[in-house]
């Protein structure tokens, strides 16, 4: 029977942050594969701080409604709780922008900015 490890207890006991799941296997090749995966996925910027996507080189201020920020904070906290990546609310916002932008057509964008018609009686 497989015993579940209490990863939160382990993180607390180590004084560590849970970063996410990896496929760890034994032996030399397992060790090398794991190292390559971790260096690619969780590499820390040389200036310190949290691991981030190396492609995110542009920085802009993003105005947000407090309720949107609250929602982002809640979702990021849930992801951390469930052992996903150690995600900050604004990293989640960046991910959402990136994913949505990839799928967004010109028409979708136009619909977003076009004033909504009020329903007439």
């Amino acid at each position, binding site marked *: 029977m497989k015993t579940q490890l209490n*990863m939160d207890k*382990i993180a607390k006991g180590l*004084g560590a942050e849970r970063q996410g*799941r990896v496929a760890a296997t*034994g032996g030399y090749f397992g060790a090398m594969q794991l190292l390559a995966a971790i*260096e690619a996925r969780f590499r820390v910027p040389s200036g310190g701080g949290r691991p981030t996507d190396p492609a995110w080189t542009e920085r802009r201020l993003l105005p947000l409604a407090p309720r949107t920020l609250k929602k982002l904070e809640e979702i990021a906290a849930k992801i951390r709780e469930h*052992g996903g990546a150690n995600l900050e609310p604004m990293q989640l916002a960046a991910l959402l922008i990136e994913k949505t932008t990839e799928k967004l057509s010109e028409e979708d964008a136009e619909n977003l900015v076009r004033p909504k018609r009020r329903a007439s009686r």
Partner: protein
Amino acid sequence: MVKKRRRPAGTRQRALTGGRKRVLVVLFVPSVERDGKTPVDQARWVDAALEMFGRVFGGATAYPKAKGVWRDDERGDVLVKDEPVVIHCYTTPADIQDDRSLADLGAFCRKMGREARQGEIGLVVGDEYFAIRDFGEE
């Protein structure tokens, strides 16, 4: 007649005290400081890590150095070379969740992070990656 297989001595005792050593703990011992240039005394840290794993969890294996390189986009695409040593330790679910063992392992990682001037010490337990970035003493 089929003979009954005998359990090796101590198996039952081991099962009662936390099960088989099937949880893989992986520690990465860096070769350079956070600046990516200044070398650290890696041999010393590998020996110290093996000693700690031996004392706390009963043993470990250090693999030969891996050579790695990555482009630091935040420092003008400079190539940072690293040759980390990967240490594998198999332990029991009970031992890895034991408060004392976790405290010893955490203390070692913080000491290495502090003295070898790292941005982060990476540790894998089971199928999860943990990062230690706060190297303050207790």
